[in-house]
């Protein structure tokens, strides 16, 4: 399996009911740097907890990898996630709204396992879509 395929499976397959299978692709010492998280997530447990948070909030969610670039053991994936918010997320009561989020993952993969990854997505857009922060109000000029 090439590094692009491993990265794609890590991103897409937890949302297809294959979280346990995907954990086989996470190194025991893997580190995930997630934008907005106060500390890196580590190992399979960190990956499982992270994914489960969003699977709980968006049980019907899916993520699709839109594009990938690979160089050596590094893979960059641009992806789009969609789902209906029917579970609690970070203290936000379920809204029933559908959201669409775009993000990028940068992963270092060796021996068929992810060793380190940086994940960033449009958190502000997600919060706007959930109504947790207001839609943009034109800046007031005086």
């Amino acid at each position, binding site marked *: 399996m090439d590094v692009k395929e491993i990265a794609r499976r890590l991103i897409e397959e937890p949302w297809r009911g294959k979280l346990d299978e995907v954990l086989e692709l996470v190194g025991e010492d893997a580190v995930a740097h997630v934008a907005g998280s106060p500390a890196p997530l580590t190992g399979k447990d960190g990956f499982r907890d992270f994914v489960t948070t969003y699977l709980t909030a968006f049980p019907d969610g899916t993520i699709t990898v839109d594009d990938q670039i690979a160089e050596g053991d590094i893979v960059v994936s641009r992806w789009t996630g969609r789902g209906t918010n029917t579970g609690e997320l970070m203290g936000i009561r379920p809204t*029933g709204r559908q*959201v669409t989020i775009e993000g990028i993952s940068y992963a270092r993969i060796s021996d068929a396992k992810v060793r380190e990854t940086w994940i960033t997505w449009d958190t502000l*857009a997600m919060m*706007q*879509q959930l109504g947790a922060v207001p*839609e*943009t*109000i034109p*800046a007031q000029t005086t």
Partner: protein
Amino acid sequence: MMDARVLIRPMFGSFPQSRYMPCVECGTSLDRTASAPHVCDAEQVLDLRLFQLRDEVAAFDAQLAEWLASARGRFAAWIAERDRRSR
């Protein structure tokens, strides 16, 4: 009292707006850049409304039982039963 929007404006006013926003009627994620107009699916509108009212729906049985146990509820039930028998 100061309008909260006055306080929020400096905080969020310069942030970009999400390309996607859910339809307020049916909750469907809509792409603001799409040219085709959105038409809500009636069933999805109902699903969203029921989801938003889930607490009220869940509480309904308990509230009805409580009301039926009250003097007004017992009297209403007695009237309803009398009307049913007289038909």
